[in-house]
């Protein structure tokens, strides 16, 4: 049994307007050793946060309370921040047209996979930090 970890204090931005999911995502990231920026419920809030907090990666809900995520995604991608789109239905045409190689994770999220994806994005050579106690269990059957 091994646990998955993100690089130490990797800052992950979360944009999600649904409180339960937002909290769940945040706690999952924190459990994996990451630092959560957000969760932001609106685009406005997200852009405000990102302006003052550099991040290593981002998990973005496609539709936020005020509008679609496009401005946020463009902001992040422009800065080379890896992004995972967390969506129930799919990615808006506008985005998939702009960014053909999007990383998508369908709702509801599976924590291990999400962390693995995040980690792969943050550390492209794929060296995952495995083993420290208190990390995210790769297999939930404890």
């Amino acid at each position, binding site marked *: 049994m091994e646990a998955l970890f993100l690089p130490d204090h990797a800052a992950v931005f979360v944009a999600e307007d649904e409180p339960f999911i937002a909290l769940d995502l945040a706690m999952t990231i924190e459990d994996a050793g990451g630092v959560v920026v957000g969760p932001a*419920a*609106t685009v406005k809030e997200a852009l405000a946060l990102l302006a003052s907090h550099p991040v290593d990666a981002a998990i973005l809900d496609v539709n936020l*309370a005020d509008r679609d995520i496009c401005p946020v995604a463009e902001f992040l991608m422009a800065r080379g921040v890896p992004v995972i789109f967390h969506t129930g*239905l799919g990615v808006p045409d506008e985005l998939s047209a702009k960014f053909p190689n999007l990383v998508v994770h369908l709702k509801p999220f599976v924590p291990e996979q999400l962390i693995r994806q995040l980690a792969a994005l943050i550390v492209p050579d794929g060296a995952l930090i495995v083993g420290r106690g208190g990390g995210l269990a790769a297999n939930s059957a404890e």
Partner: protein
Amino acid sequence: MRHSVGLGSDGTLGAAAIKEHGGLTLAQAEFDHQAKPGMPLSATSTGQVDEILPVEAMPAKLVAYLKHLRGVAETKDPEGTRQDAGGYLAAICSLLQARCGHDFRSYKEKTFVRRMQRRMQVLQISTPEAYVSHLREQPQELDVLFLELLIGVTQFFRDPAAFEALGTSVLTNLVQGKCADDLIRVWVPGCATGQEVFTLAMLLREAMDTRGPTPKVQIFGTDIDERSIVVARLGRYAKPMVGVSPERLERWFVQDGDGYSIVAEIREMCLFSLHSLIKDPPFSKLDLISCRNLLIYLDPEAQDRVMRTFHYALNPGATLFLGSSETVTRSAKLFGVADKKHRIFTRKVIDGPSLPDLSPTRRIKPVPGPGGIGSGPSERIDSDARRLMEKYSPPHIVVDRDHLIVRFSGGDVGAYLEPSAGAPSFNLFNILRKNLRPAVRAALQDAELSGRPVLHENIAVRVEGKARLITLIVEPMPDHGAKASRKTGVFALGFQDNGPASISGRGRKSNEAPADAMQALEQELRTTRFQLQSSIDEAEVVNEEMRSSNEEYQSVNEELQSANEELETAKEEIQSVNEELHTINAEMGSKNELLTTLNSDLVNLLDSTEIATIFLDDQLLIKSFTPGITDIFPLRESDVGRPITEIVTLLSYADLKRDVRAVIRKLTVIEQQVSLVGAGMTFIMRIRPYRRVDNVIDGVVITFIDITEREGAQAALRGAQDDLRLLIDSTADAIFCVDRQGLPTLCNAAFMRMLGFEREEEVIGKDLHAMIHPSRHDGSPYPRDESAIIRAAKSGQPAHVEGEVFCRRDGTGFPVEYWLRPMLRNGELQGAVCTFVDVTERRLAEEQQALLLRELDHRMKNLFAVTAGVVALSARSALTPQDMAKTVRGRLDALARAHLLIRPVLPGASSVAQRTTLADLIREIISPYADPDRAGDGRRALIEGPDVPISGEAATSFALVLHELATNAAKYGALSTDEGRLRISWTVNQDTLALIWEEHGGPPIESTPEREGFGTQLARRSAGGNLGGTIAFNWNRAGLLVHLSASQARLIA
């Protein structure tokens, strides 16, 4: 000897010519396949073919015929006429008369023998004797001989120069001399098949061309051959039309099959009848007789008779037209020459009758003298005076220019006459004493030459054995008949006796006797002489009386005779008229037959049509009717002549009288539908004027056509049509029909409604495609020829089309789905029927459904994501599995309640009344802990605030926040005790909802919790997150006070 061979399709004319010259004619038999089809039938039907044989048999026949000709050659004279036949003619003639009723005794012997001889040649009989016995044994040979004798050649304008001369001189003058009311009468005896008659008719009609009003013309064509008359009456002649110029052919004939028919204008001028010139009484008062080549067949005696007949029949000065080899020299007394070359002669006026069958001794009626108005006394005085004067005037004779005696005087004229032997004659020089003849001839010649009276005195003549001296007086008399003649025509020849020629040589004997005796004797003699004288005187008186009474008798006799003459004349006239009547009667008879046929055709036609017809005159009297009329008017035959208005009828028509009058007055046709009351029958009644053939209006014809069945069928049809119309108008689908050109012929109410038309006229026959179907659904132009509707109308293929757009009249479009079916009538394509529906709403519903599905999918996914979050988060704070289960259930329950209340709001779907309000949501969420509607719980929880509709995703967040607050209250706060109270109130200010959660009366709160609980954290996150507001917790000792704000837009969206 001539031998002719006939070729060609119709040898009829040639056959006639051959026969005319005594030749033999053979015809191919019909069973010979090489036969010319027209020939035998045509030629044999005219009786001109002697034998019909197959071609193979012809040579044998010809050889036998020749042999026979040579055999009898020596019995013929140089002209080829047999000399041994004459003795048998009488026998043959009487046989013929017995069989055929015609007397050929007056036929010219040579002609007769030649014709007979020809028959003998055909039959190969060598002696006349044998032929007579053949005739006795085979009576039908008599018929053949009869026809043989009648064969004549005739054609139009035969001898054209003569007809031309007749036309220019005679006919033109004849026409000029007549006015419109006059009648021109022409007789053509021996007309055969009528060509000569029609020729004259054409010439007359042409002569009348130059005139305005034309006189009426009657041309009598007569012949004794009934078959010829039948042909003539038909007036139809086979080609070629020899002798007729193309202009005349064009003008006077109409082409009729392979022949020509005389036009009616000419035909109507001519009357044909069976008539024998020799046997029957003639026509009279004629202007022209054309008798060509008939006299040549008659012997001289018959010719004379015929000439006299013609003389009688013609008007004075009228014209006789003979054939080229005929002349009137023998009858110079009757006819004068007008044109010798062309044989045109003029009738002379002669004294005395000319009709041959009547007594030659008759005299013309005495011409009444001037002032001799009455007969009786004055005439008697005249005759008495004449008688008395005769004693003192010389006996005399009146002769005409031809020296024929026309009058004898009374008295001693007989003394100068001496009848000669032989036939009685009226020629002066035949009956005058021979010794007088030279003197009289000389005197007459003198008088003729000088035109003055001639007196030859003291001519010594021996009369009754005594020599007498005679003075011869010749006095020309005024001749009333011979007008314009230089010569006087009549001469009075008187003989005055001047006593004996000489008194010499008279001897006297003297005898002496005694004186006394002598004296006594002389006395006695004197007495006796005296007595004798008185006796003589008495005798003379008696004689004179006798003579006078004799003369009276004579004069009475004369009168009787003249009366007789008048009667004879009248009889002749009657005979002529009778003959004419016969002719007309024959024509009438044939016309009558035609009329009878036509009439029976008409009767059958009227009976067979079921059209009830009634004929009324202008007084509305019934003239006739058809049997069908009895359905309408109960008429019987006896009702003819009754006024129609008296007939009781069930006809619902009161204006019959008025309408009939209107039809007669305006000559229009009235057509009207009428019905029989009670009988349920309907008729179309037509009143038309009855127009006679001569264009006179004589009443009306009313016809009734039974249309009951038709009416019934039409009513049913109308009903069916109405039903059908109702049906198509009541359906919600739009229906229209187009013809093969794609032009609309019908449209229903749904069509009009959907497309915004008001009247059918805006649609029917218009270019519908341009109006409703100008573009495709994507807005591109839709060419007419590509339209499925037009194509289906032209091809007859059914079609189903979706996804197209129709255009309303106002230009707006709507999506349609339509079906096309071909319209066939009797298997022939008429166009197409198009049914279409407006699919706007269906489209909308489909779109909504898709939207709904996507929304549902989205929400489901969201819900699962939320649920996953709920489970994961609950697990973090749960102490035991039971605790976790309870928490999770509570939260899921809240979510479920929120979902129940908050359905997706779709465009145009729901009404405001069904919307969930904030109050509903709150009540639902807190009801597991404190149901405001339940008795007892109402006072624990107070919910107040304005109506705020709530929907959308944010509502679930709101519900969860409330749930967290409610579970917290139920665990630790106001709802955990019976005394605790909860108040939820809110206000709306512009876009912001401000809600206050106020607890009190629960367990007192000692302090603000050190660690923010999960519920609080969640609530805060929600409020700041998708509720777009804020939340603030005040942990007051009396109870929790929460201020929650949210964007109202989020709650509604």
